[in-house]
């Protein structure tokens, strides 16, 4: 299948296909799109830079000297954001799956567990993330209990795991419910236990279906690592805040924003690509699926 390479190529597809087909129409379309984009961007740029007060805006937010000075330090601090993201993500994926499985347990015996999982999801989706971070990050170390960690980064990660697990467990649950009951019937009819049916038949199909929404939550998490900065941990936002308060110039904030966007935009495009690929596959499978 030649389409494998085409799909990976992403935006180049149009250009490449035109070469393969040898036709002129695709090339012309790309040319028109390019020209119209250049004109549009130029017009917007002119409009903005000629607006009253632009010089003031430029000095405050787009100071290249400030940018170059602060970027290396902020980039170093950004490593902490990435670290928080990676550690939190692993725990979120595991904890949220546990919550979703608990919520799908059948029968009246498991009612208390199901109720607990529902209450958990309701609570942590309802409370602002920054409040949870403040409660744990300021509160837990203040207890000064023996054996309780005092690292603000640690508590920041715990708070993110608690909040995001509530969202991600809902995503998993939607996936589990999307697997047709006949799949479980088929597995159980072969003598598999409920747990085995879940592990071998239901979860693998459920997780595959929810990868795009999971990635969406990843994007949210990557952004929200900046909230840990309010506890005093020097991550990208906190570092840019320090730089800004030293100079009263807000360019460092923009530098930090750029770093976040550099990670979240590729993630967003990757998610789009996965959704598109999934749709194409389902169309290709047709009624057989």
């Amino acid at each position, binding site marked *: 299948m030649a389409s494998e390479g085409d799909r990976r190529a992403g935006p180049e597809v149009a250009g490449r296909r035109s070469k393969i087909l040898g036709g002129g129409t695709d090339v012309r379309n790309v040319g028109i799109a390019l020209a119209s984009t250049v004109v549009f961007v130029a017009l917007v740029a002119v409009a903005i830079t000629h607006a009253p007060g632009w010089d003031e805006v430029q000095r405050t937010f787009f100071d290249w000297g400030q940018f170059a000075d602060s970027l290396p330090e902020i980039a170093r601090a950004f490593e902490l954001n990435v670290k928080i993201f990676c550690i939190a993500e692993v725990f979120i994926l595991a904890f949220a799956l546990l919550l979703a499985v608990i919520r799908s347990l059948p029968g009246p015996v498991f009612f208390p567990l199901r109720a607990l999982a529902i209450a958990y999801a309701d609570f942590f989706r309802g409370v602002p993330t920054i409040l949870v971070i403040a409660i744990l990050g300021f509160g837990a170390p203040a207890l000064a209990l023996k054996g309780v960690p005092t690292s603000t980064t640690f508590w920041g990660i715990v708070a993110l795991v608690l909040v995001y697990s509530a969202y991600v467990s809902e995503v998993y649950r939607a996936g589990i419910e999307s697997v047709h009951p006949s799949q479980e019937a088929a*597995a*159980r*009819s*072969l*003598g598999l236990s409920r747990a*085995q049916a879940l592990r071998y038949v239901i979860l693998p199909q459920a997780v595959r279906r929810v990868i795009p929404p999971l990635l969406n939550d990843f994007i949210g998490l990557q952004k929200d690592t900046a909230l840990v900065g309010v506890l005093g941990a020097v991550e990208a936002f906190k570092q840019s805040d320090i730089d800004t308060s030293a100079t009263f110039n807000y360019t460092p904030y923009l530098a930090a924003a750029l770093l976040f966007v550099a990670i979240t935009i590729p993630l967003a495009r990757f998610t789009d690509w996965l959704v598109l690929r999934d749709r194409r596959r389902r169309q290709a499978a047709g009624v*057989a699926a």
Partner: protein
Amino acid sequence: MSVLALEGVRKSFGRLEVLRGVDLEVSEHEVVCLIGASGSGKSTLLRCVNLIEPVDAGRIVVRGEEVTRRGIDVDRVRRRIGIVFQAFNLFPHMSVLRNVTLAPRAVLGRGRAEAEAGARELLARFGLADKAGEYPDRLSGGQQQRVAIVRALAMEPELMLLDEVTSALDPELVAEVLEVIRELAAGGMTMLIATHEMGFARDIADRVCFLDGGVILEQGPPERIFTAPAEARTRQFLERIVAAGRM
């Protein structure tokens, strides 16, 4: 001793009484076909035997063991009874080979090599040797249904339940699946088959049971049921089938 015995089995869905006291025995190596109109309870009966649906009243006995009693290990019972569904219900995320080896490995604890050898042998027996690595959505309906039969056979069941296994197939794919079932019958497999294929039932069944109004209204050897039914309802049902060109 009978492989399967149903005694006064009742089953309702809400206020709809589907089974209203079914008595049925299936002996070793016997092939019993269930016929009857859509909604007459054929599928429900099979699902009750496999304990997918709990019965409301009555007993189901498999080789002398009552499987409808409280506290029975349903997984252990299902291991001994294979069921094949109308809609195949293959696992779409697994290759054909994995579909067939999953239960022997996970339930019977067989090693991978042993399970795969057994699976390949079965697949080859039913003309699917070259499909072991394929995924279900790359197969035709007939091939998928044959894989589903092989998947059930891999557990070496004492009894096979076939639930309208050709109803979801295009007409030209029906024959290959019926051929597989004929081969099973020839090999002495005990089977309880719900079917709309009257010609096939007449061919293969040792006994035909006509299900009507939630009970087995009439049963007997296929020659008698199809040529000289005793009950008026059976006669009407068969006349409708003939009129529809299905026999």
